[in-house]
Every structure is written in C-alpha cells, then in structure tokens.
C-alpha cells in the first residue's frame, strides 16, 4: 500500500523541479553577474551566466529531481533563491545610481 503522503510528495517534487528550479536557475544567472570574476575583458561576469544558463538549469533540475531527501533538495533550492535574490536586492537598493555604471563589481565596490 502506498504511503498517504505519496501524492503530496509527487506534487512537491514537481513544483520543486519545475517552477522553483527555473526561478532558482534564473536568479543564479542574474546574480552571477555580481559574484563571477570579470576576467581580462571585464565581460565574463555578464556573458558566462547567460551562455551557461541551460547548464545551470539542467544541473539544478537533475539534483532537485534525483535527491531522495526531498527536504534537503528544497532547502538547497531555497538557499540558492534566497541568497541570490538577497544579493541582487542589496545591490539594487544600495547603489541605484551606480547600477547604470557597469558591472556589479564596479557598482558595489567589491564582489561579495
């Protein structure tokens, strides 16, 4: 007999690997502009997250789908979402004028 939590777990897994995974990957991509190294051309922090977005999403999807400990998978996803959302919000709120100046490194003064 299936456990009574079978359907809710399936839904929780689906929500986690579907919309939550996409939002987390999008925030990692956008937030990557703030913490990735600029590289010699000072563009890597902006170009690499966009180019690698499909890989970021796929890696996250497989982890969130295949980790047998659902609670841990949710925790990892929420930490990624909260960490990057907070980083972006802090950057935008702290330096609204400087946001138009260039990369996140320039605007914040230092990489987080």
């Amino acid at each position, binding site marked *: 007999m299936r456990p009574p939590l079978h359907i809710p777990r399936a839904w929780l897994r689906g929500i986690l690997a579907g919309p939550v995974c996409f939002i987390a990957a999008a925030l990692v991509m956008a937030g990557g502009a703030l913490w990735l190294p600029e590289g010699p051309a000072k563009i890597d922090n*902006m170009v690499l997250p966009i180019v690698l977005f499909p890989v970021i999403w796929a890696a996250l999807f497989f982890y969130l*789908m295949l980790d047998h400990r659902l609670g841990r998978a949710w925790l990892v996803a929420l930490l990624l979402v909260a960490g990057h959302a907070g980083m972006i919000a802090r950057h935008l709120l702290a330096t609204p004028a400087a946001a138009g100046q*260039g990369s*996140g490194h320039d605007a914040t003064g230092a990489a987080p």
Partner: protein
Amino acid sequence: MIALSQTRTKELLAIHGWSAVGLGLLLYAVILTGVVSVFASEIGTWSAPLPAPASAALPERGLDAALKRLAAEVPAEFHEDTFFFPDTAGRIRSFFHKHDQRAGEAQPMDRGVEFDLDPATLAVLDRREGWSDEIRARNLPSALADFFVELHVSLHLPDPWGLLLTGVLGLAMLLAAVTGFLVHRHLIRELFTLRRHREPLLVQRDAHVIAGTWNLPFAFVLAFTGSFFSFAGSFGIPAIAMVAFGGDQQKMIETVVGTPAKEDATPAPFADFDAMLADARHRAGGDAGFVSIDHYGRADALVTVSMFAPDGKLNGATYTYNGATGAFIQQKPTFGLVPSLGNDLFSLMAPLHFGNFAGLWSKAVWFALGFAGAYVTLTGLLLWTTRRAAEPAWQPLARATGWVGYGLPLALAAVPVARFLAPPLGLDLHAAQNTGFIAGVAVATLLAWRLRDADRLRRSLLGITGVLMVLTPMLRGWSGGPGWITAAGQGLITVIAVDIAVLLAGLLCLRSATRPPAATPAAEAVATTTAEGAQTA
C-alpha cells in the same frame, strides 16, 4: 556504460519519457522547422532568385560609392547606426537607423531606412522605411525563408513568449538527451542493434534507439545552443541588464561588445569604405560577411568588419577601423576588447547551432542529424503511446502524434505553394504564406478528426504533402521564376537543386503514402489499438 541502480535508471527513464511526452509535439515542430531553416539562404535564393548567382560575401568593389549615395539620401538622424550584409535571398541589405523609443514599447527599437541592393551592380532593388518590425513585414525576397526561420525561433508567437517557449523546449530536449545517454546500459552495442525480424514494436524501438544514440551528442549540442539563443534575448540579457545596468539593455550590449570611444559629433567626411574592406580581406585571408558603421559622417565614426570563418576554423576575425580616417584600429573579439572565456564560449554557439562553418557540407550534416532528431522525437512518442495503447487516457496523445507528426510537414509544404501563388493572383505575399500554413493545419486537423484509423491518417497526410511538393516547382515557374534551362544558363544552380530536392521529397512522401501499412509497425499498432479503442467507445 554508467553504473546506475535500478531505481535510479527507472527515475531517469521516467524523466526521459515525460520530458518528451510533455512537450514532444512542440519540440518536434521546432526541430523540423529547424531542419528546414538550415537551408534558409538556399530557400531565399530559390524563391526569389536574382538574374545571376549571388556571392555569400560582400562585394569587393563599389560599396564605398553605394554607402555614400545611400547616406546622402536618408535623413541624417539615421546615420547613427548602419550595417551591410548579404541576406538570405542574396541581396546586399543595408539598414540606416537609430535606436528610438516607440510609444508603448518598454525597450528602444530600431527605426530607419532599409535598402536591398543588387550584389552585382549595387543598384537599389527595394527601399523600406519605418520601424524594424514594419520593415521586416515589407521584405518580400526573404519572406519564405524568414517564415520558416521565425517558426523555428519563436513558433510565430509574440516576443518574448515565443522565445521563452522554444527555450523551454530546448531544455526539455536537453533533458531527453542527457537521460537518454545515462540510461543506455550498452551504448556501443545499441549503436548497431536492429532486430529486423522480430515483432514490429521491437523493430520500431530499435530504430528509435539507433537513431537516438547516434544523434545523442548532436541533440545535446542543439538543445544547449538553442535554449541559449532563446533565453539570451528573451530573458538573459534583460535580467543581467537589470542587475548590472539598471535595466538599460542598450548600455549593456555596448559595454559587452566593447567600451565605446568618447563621442565626438564633429562632422567629418567618411574615409574610403572599399579600402577598409580590402584591408580586412587582406588581414583575414577571406571575405567580409557583415559590416557595422557607428556615427557615419562624424569624427567618431567606427567601422566594425566581421569576416567569414576561414577554412578549418569555426569563427572569423572582427576588425575595427576609424571611419573618418580609414585607419585600422584593432582586431577585437566579438565581445570585449581582449580575448576572454566568455567571448570564446559565446563564439561557439552560432556555428554549433547553425552548422554553417563549413559551407554546404556542414549544413548537409546538420540537416541529416536534425532530421534524425525529428525522427527520434516522433518515433519516441509513437512508442510511448503504442505501449499504452490499452489505456484510453493515452488515445488523445496517440491521435495528436499522428496529426502533428504528419500534419506539420503538410502545413509546411503549403507555405511555398501559397508563396508562389500569391504574385500571379495579386495577393499579399506574407498574408498568403500565413494563410497557406493555416490552411495546411486546418486540412490536417479535419483529417485527424475524421479518420479514426491512424495509418489512413498518416497516408492521407503524406499523400497531400507529396502532391503539394511535386506541384511546387511548377508553381514557382508559373509565378515568374526561371525555368531549369534559363536557370542553368544564368548559373542559378541552387534554383535547380532545390527544385529537385523538393520534387524528390514529394515523391518519397507519395511512395510512403501508397506503401502497405506493415512497413510502419508502430503506426500500425497505434492504428489497430486506436480503431479498437474507437469501436469500444
């Protein structure tokens, strides 16, 4: 190949199946239209040929005079940004424009004057003025090729929704490719296993696995690069621009491409454009494919020349020149002013997705592998529904698979028919193409609704597709296109080659439509079960 527990393999197999079942039919549409789009330039040349074959490169002489003649004709505000490139229909396209804010739009759009130039004489063939989307809607020579490309890129849905959808489809394909690789227990053996004389479903499964296994690396590359292209424009660039530039996408693009020089609006004559192109050709040892001119007629005019990839390389060089003096400034990467990992990775995306790095040969390989991808998607769906043929809940998907699988080629074949019917009948060309496609979809839908037997549906749809394709070269001639003798005399080999390809494809469709159903086992199994299901119902 990779040791996985039984539970893990089952999970991956479930992801593999569901990623395809959930979005498989749309994915099939994107792959099939992508296969057609590989030959966009050949389709453009075929549908609107010039009197003589056009080179894929910019002409070596005469562009300087053409540039100055056209620049004198357009309003000075459109000198802000100009480009020249050979388009899919073989014309030299030039667009003098500015980045302007259109009422109701969130981001600036391009507004200006676009010219089609004859590549041999550089005479103006067409002039279009307005916003970029209005100009695109009035471009007739590239209309057919653009229809297929737009269908592939965004399914003709408005921005950004079409791009977001095709991006998600790319991610689904990425999942199917990765899980398809991981669940193979005997990867090498499955590359060559086809049990021809076993039951039909097993033969069909083997064919699916063989095509899918050979296609795995290519499917991964296409899915990755395709979802990159879809998401970059619709959501990646806006998101990064929001974080790093307060939402100013233009500023972000300028910064990523290379920090622009200090502005100097002092009027200054433009240097010899032909000499700059000759210097670029000399440096690269190849032809120029795209030229951009910032601030024509000013002291800070900047010319950026992008070269075609030389033999043995995936990308060509990019050179910059001072437009006012003609002096060479530097060879620069596409992004940034010095080499970087970001630029190197980005530079791989286009050649790997479009397969245009080695001319016709690489395009033919990309076409074949893309076609195999469409086959794998369709047979995967047929297998999935056949295995669940006893479950009534899966019958709608089984019928939808036949409808889309064979109805989409019919709708695509109707587009050139409508395109060639439009000029003699005095119809708007773009509207006729759209109507042709919709009519094809309507016919396929009607047949799918009326015909319960899946094999009859398949044969009917393939039969109509075949007839349309066989008629297409004749309609091209009727609409004013050159016949084979004239085309051969003018050296328009592409016109004859595409005619023959379309004819052969049409004959293959007709042959398949008249072939006994036993030759398509999965379809037969679906047909049987569907018919049984219908009778039961």
